[in-house]
């Protein structure tokens, strides 16, 4: 039976596979499903009045031990970012190593009604992706997705500061303590320390209008879809703070953009958004797609074991073949 070249290639690749493949590693990457106990936040920009209670409370709650802003050296201090000399107001303009949560305002001209401008607030913090790019990127498992709650947490004692998480996160969320000689990554951890003690996210607890609503992600998804089906102008009893706590407030239903941001984006997130203004205008990178980002690198990493095997076999075979050829040449020469 003649062996053609392609069969030979297949064979050598196969040998490599057998040699080096750990079956589990090379198996297709499991699709990460949303855990039924996953918790998250639904932010409805149309309800937000821009009071920034969430920002203030986020800082306070996270400056406590266990919080994402807590440092032994600065225990008891809340990391405000003052502007001007009076040092009166905490005035961050973007997320930073001192600010996990930020309210921004968008003002723009609407295309339909001339003159009358569109307006919206938007709240930025980590989206707790269902399959987070940052977790897949971190080489030392400093960033982890908690089983159950699905919260993406950070362990500063593991982190060695490569900052690949910053490169990987499509939403540009992880911030770095550039000014410290012993720096950490800083990002919202959904108030994991409070949830561990039976509480919930400080930003939602502080929100007076229900714009930031805490709950199980599945409940929040239903709630979001329900709101999109409401008729503009009707009134609706909007849940406030925590979707399971039963507190509501009656509001007139606004005109929604027919999209729940976070349902599909980056493969789905546990922090979701509703708004009356196009999401592209609200500071979301328009190049973010529904791509599950970790799949992009897994496509490569999953082939590494095979490549190791194949290259080792190919290298050895080449050496053997050239050695034999050399020997033959020598034999021929001496034979003549």
């Amino acid at each position, binding site marked *: 039976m003649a062996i053609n070249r392609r069969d030979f290639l297949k064979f050598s690749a196969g040998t490599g596979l057998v040699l080096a493949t750990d079956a589990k*590693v090379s198996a297709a*990457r499991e699709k990460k499903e949303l855990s039924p106990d996953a918790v998250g936040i639904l932010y409805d920009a149309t309800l937000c009045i821009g009071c920034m209670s969430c920002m203030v409370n986020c800082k306070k709650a996270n400056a406590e031990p266990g919080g994402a802003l807590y440092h032994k050296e600065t225990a008891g201090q809340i990391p405000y970012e003052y502007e001007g000399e009076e040092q009166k107001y905490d005035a961050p303009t*973007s*997320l*930073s190593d001192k600010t996990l949560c930020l309210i921004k305002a968008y003002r723009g001209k609407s295309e339909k009604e001339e003159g009358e401008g569109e307006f919206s607030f938007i709240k930025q913090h980590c989206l707790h992706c269902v399959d987070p*790019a940052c977790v*897949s*990127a*971190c*080489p*030392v*498992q400093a960033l982890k997705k908690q089983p159950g709650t699905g919260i993406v947490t950070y362990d500063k004692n*593991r*982190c*060695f*500061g*490569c*900052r*690949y998480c*910053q*490169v*990987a996160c*499509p939403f*540009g969320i*992880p*911030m*770095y303590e*550039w*000014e*410290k*000689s*012993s*720096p*950490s990554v800083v990002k919202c951890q959904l108030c994991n320390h409070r949830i561990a003690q039976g509480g919930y996210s400080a930003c939602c607890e502080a929100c007076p209008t229900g714009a930031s609503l805490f709950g199980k992600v599945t409940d929040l998804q239903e709630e979001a879809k329900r709101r999109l089906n409401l008729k503009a102008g009707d009134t609706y009893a909007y849940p406030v703070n925590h979707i399971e706590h039963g507190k509501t407030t009656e509001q007139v239903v606004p005109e929604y953009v027919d999209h729940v941001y976070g349902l599909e984006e980056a493969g789905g997130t546990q922090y979701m958004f509703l708004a009356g203004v196009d999401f592209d205008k609200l500071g979301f*990178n328009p*190049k*973010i*797609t529904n*791509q599950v*980002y*970790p799949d*992009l*690198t*897994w*496509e*490569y*990493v999953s082939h*590494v074991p095979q*490549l*190791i095997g194949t*290259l*080792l076999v190919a*290298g*050895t075979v*080449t*050496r053997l073949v*050239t*050695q034999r*050829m*050399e020997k033959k040449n020598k034999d021929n020469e001496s034979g003549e």
Partner: protein
Amino acid sequence: MESNPNIKTWTPATMVMVVLIIVGISVGLYRMIYGLGATTNLNDAYPWGFWLGLDVLGGVAMAAGGFIIACAVYLFNWKKYRPIVRPAILTAFLGYLMAVLALFLDIGHPFRLWHPSIMWQYQSVMWVVAMHVIFYTTTLALEFSPMLFERLGWEKARRAVGKIMVGAVIFGVMLSTLHQSSLGAVFLISPSKMSPLWWDTKLPFHFLVSAVAMGLAMVSFETALSKKFLHHEVDKEIFTGLARGLLIVLGFYLLLKLYQLFTVASPAMAFDGSVEGNMYLLEMFLGVILPVAILAVKKYRNDLKVIFAVNIIVIIGVILNRMNVCLFSQESYGAWRGLGYSPSWKEFLVSLGVISIGVFLYKMSAKHLPLFSH
């Protein structure tokens, strides 16, 4: 074996290097004490900067010559290149040492550099990269050790390494191939930040092929230098052979990049006058198209002076490519976030220091080690 009397230790160039090394180390210490913010212009939109682009990505690409020549000599049995196998391995070893040194300064917690070796996360490209650095630097040290043993007269140790040399080379070729491509794979996860002029699912392959080109150019370049300054006789055939190899690899790379330009990006992007477009054109014309055009002419391909010049522009071109992938490809993303980056003078000084350490060690090795004795 005696030290090479042709090489003087204290030349003006060496003195300059020593000064640069001292300055670099001082700024490095400053960084260790005061942190990255005080030393660099890095920020949250540009977490990776000059050190990573030039010293780490560039340094590793520069080191590719080591595995290519080792592969040619030990695996393909191309004896012609035996005289340059040691300098090539030395360059690779030094290139990796430089990269590790730069990484040490670049990561937030230098003394946790070892963390990936015990905290595994095999889904992370960065973890794969870290493991390759560890294993390949060790392998290179092993491949380099015979030069040291020979000099010290440790015959037994030399013979012991000699026995496993072929195994080490096979292992090294595997590691190196994967490491070069893994460095490209690192960027696969950021399509929403990088310009499609560089981002592509084939990025790992692009990195590998351009590293091979860089490796060939680098080996030829330094062989020419040691011929001139260290009075080391080299056959012309080695240079022309390397130039032919360079033409083939760069030609192939050009096709890859053109394919990407027409399928993933679009030619219009390259010519739209943006920073990305201009950097792309510079990189492609200087580092790829021009050298291919020159080397395609047989007369030039056999002219040592021309080859020398081509090597230089290829080296610059590939370094430019790494800087582009790491920095300039994110220009519009950075602008969208309202942040920019250009290296601080402290970053420059550290990079200069790191490069000077590499060159200085190379020179000292050339003087004191049997680098060309084969």
